[in-house]
C-alpha cells in the first residue's frame, strides 16, 4: 500500500548543471521500498506544474541505527518539474507518494546479475545493487553516457563490490561508443551454463537493443520502462505500452501497475514510441 508523505528535503546534492540528488525524510516509504520501485513527487505546492512526476528510488537512506529514514532520487533536469527539483533547498517540503510499481526480481548465486544503465537510467540500480549484495550475487554494472562528465556516482557502486564497465560515446572515459558493445562482447564470452540475468534501464532504443541481445543469447532480461505517467496507480491509462500477456495478443498495458519493470520479451518493441 503506497503512502503519501509531506517529506522534508534533507539535502540537495548538485552533481552538475543537469543532475542532482535530492534526499527526503520519509521513513515509512524507505521501509517499504523494494529495488526498482518508484515514487510520484509533487514538484510544487501550487497547481502548476500540476501532475506529480515519477522517479525511481535511488537510495534508501538510513539513520545511525541503520533503520531506513528516507530516500533519495537521482534527478535529471529536462522540463519544468525536474527544474524545480534541481532548485529545492533543504527545509522545503514536497509530497512524495510511494513506493509504487512492480520491483525488479533479483537473482541469487550462482546466477550473475548484469545491470545495464544508460544516462539517467542509472537511477533504479543502486537499490538493486544493494539487494544483490545482500544475496552475494556477483553483479556487474554496464553504464554508458555521452561523455565522462555525465557518468555519476560510480563510487557508490564500487563500494558495494559491483564490477563496473563504463562506456562514453565520445570516448572520454571507459569503452568508446555505446554501452551495448561491451555488453554484447560479455554475452558472447559467457558460457551458456553460467546463468546471468540482465536488468536494463535507459533510452528506449538502448533497452530495445538489450532486449534483442538477451533474446539472441537466451538470457532473462528485465527492463524498467519510463512512460509519461499521470497517476502512477492505474487510474488514467496514460502510461501504456504494447505488451503481450502470456505469449498472447499484445495489449496496451499500464506501466505504472504492471511495470515499470517488465520481462523484456513481453514488449512489442516495434510499436513502442521512441522517447
Amino acid at each position, binding site marked *: *500500500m*503506497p503512502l*503519501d508523505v509531506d517529506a522534508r528535503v534533507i539535502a540537495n546534492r548538485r552533481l552538475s548543471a543537469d543532475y542532482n540528488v535530492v534526499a527526503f525524510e520519509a521513513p515509512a516509504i524507505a521501509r517499504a521500498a523494494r529495488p526498482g520501485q518508484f515514487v510520484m513527487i*509533487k514538484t510544487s505546492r501550487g*497547481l*502548476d*506544474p*500540476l*501532475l*506529480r512526476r515519477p522517479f525511481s528510488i535511488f537510495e534508501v537512506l538510513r539513520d545511525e541505527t541503520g533503520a531506513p529514514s528516507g530516500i533519495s532520487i537521482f534527478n535529471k533536469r529536462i522540463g519544468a518539474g525536474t527544474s524545480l527539483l534541481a532548485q529545492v533547498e533543504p527545509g522545503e517540503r514536497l*509530497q512524495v*507518494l510511494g513506493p509504487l510499481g512492480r520491483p525488479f526480481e533479483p537473482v541469487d548465486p550462482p546466477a550473475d546479475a548484469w545491470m545495464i544503465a544508460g544516462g539517467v537510467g542509472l537511477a533504479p540500480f543502486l537499490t538493486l545493487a544493494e539487494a544483490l549484495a545482500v544475496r552475494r550475487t556477483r553483479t556487474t554494472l554496464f553504464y554508458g553516457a555521452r561523455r565522462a562528465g555525465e557518468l555519476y556516482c560510480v563510487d557508490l557502486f564500487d563500494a558495494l563490490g559491483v564490477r563496473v564497465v563504463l562506456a562514453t560515446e565520445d570516448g572520454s572515459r571507459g569503452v568508446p561508443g555505446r554501452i551495448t558493445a561491451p555488453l554484447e562482447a560479455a554475452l558472447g564470452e559467457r558460457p551458456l551454463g553460467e546463468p546471468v540475468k540482465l536488468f536494463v534501464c535507459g533510452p528506449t532504443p538502448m533497452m530495445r537493443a538489450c532486449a534483442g541481445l538477451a533474446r539472441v543469447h537466451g538470457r532473462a532480461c528485465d527492463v524498467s520502462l519510463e*512512460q*509519461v505517467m*499521470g*497517476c502512477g*496507480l*492505474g*487510474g*488514467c*491509462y*496514460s*502510461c*501504456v*505500452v504494447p505488451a503481450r500477456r502470456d505469449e498472447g495478443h499484445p*495489449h*496496451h498495458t499500464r506501466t505504472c*501497475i504492471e511495470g515499470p519493470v517488465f520481462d523484456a520479451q513481453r514488449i512489442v518493441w516495434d*510499436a513502442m*514510441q521512441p522517447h
Partner: protein
Amino acid sequence: MDLSVTIGSLTLANPLIAASGCFGYGVEYGDVVDLASLGAVAVKGLFLTEREGHAPPRIVETPSGMLNAIGLQGIGVHRFIAQQLPALRARRATVIVNICGTTLEEYVEVARILSDADGVGALELNISCPNIKEGGITFGCSLPGTHAVVSAVRKVTRLPVIPKLTPNVTDVASFARAAEESGADAISLVNTFLAMAIDVHTRRPRLTNIVGGLSGPAIRPIAVRMVYECRRVVKIPIIGMGGIATAEDALEFMIAGANAVQVGTMNFVDPFIWPKLMDGLHAYMAAHGIVRLQDIVGTVDTTARQNSWISS
C-alpha cells in the same frame, strides 16, 4: 449531518463521486481509498467490446490542467460485468457505469446489458468524449442527437440515466433542457474541452491523436459557470465537475447548482484526496450550521452588491 443526494432511484451517501476515466475501474484504488466511503464510483467509459484506445503519448500536462486522448481504452461491458463488478460489489462501492457507443444501437445494447447486471447503480451516458471520431460527441454536440440517445436508453432501463454533457457548445443550457425533456434523471457536466498542444521543435502535436480534452483546475471557472447556467433551466439533479481540488471547490459547484460532484484529474495528483474532501464538507457544514448539504444547492446570491454610484 445529512450529506446524501438522490438521483432518480439511487441515493448516494454523499455527493463525492470519482469521475469516469480518472479512477480506472475503481478496483485499482482499493488499497488507497475506501470505495464504500465515496458517494459513488464512475468507472471508465465502456463500449460493447474491448478497445485498445489511442497510441501514446496520451496525456500532456498544461498549465493547471492536462490534455488526454486515451481513446476510451476499455475492457468492454461483458468483461467488466464478469471481472470488475463483483470486486466493486465486494467493496460495497456504489457504481455508476459510464457508457459509450459508436451508434445509437450500441448505447442501447450496452445499457440493456448493464441493466440486467447486479450492482450497477446508474448509467452515465458519455455523449461528450472529444477524443473519438465515431459516435459519442456527434450525439452530444447536437440537440436532436442528444434527444435521440437519451430517449432510446431511457426506454430500455430502469436505472437512473445521466447524460454527460460536453462544454464545447455555445449554449450548454439548451442541451441540459434537451436531456431533461428526453427523460434523463440527472445530467453530468462538464466533460473535457477540446484542446491541443504542439511541440514547437518537432512541429508535431504533443498527442498522437492531435487533439485531446482539457481537464483539471484550469477549466474550473468555466465549468462552474456552465453548472450555474444549467441550474436555471432544469429541475433534475446536476452532477458538476471540472477541476475540483478542494472541498471549497466542490462546494462552489454545489452553490452554483450541482447536487453532486465528480473529481477526476485531482485524484491523479492526490489519490488521498477523498477523506480530505469529506472532512472539508463536514467542517463547512459545521461552521455554517448546515444540517442538510442539499440545502446549499443553487443558492448562489446574485443580487446586486451595491448601488451603482457612478454612471456606467
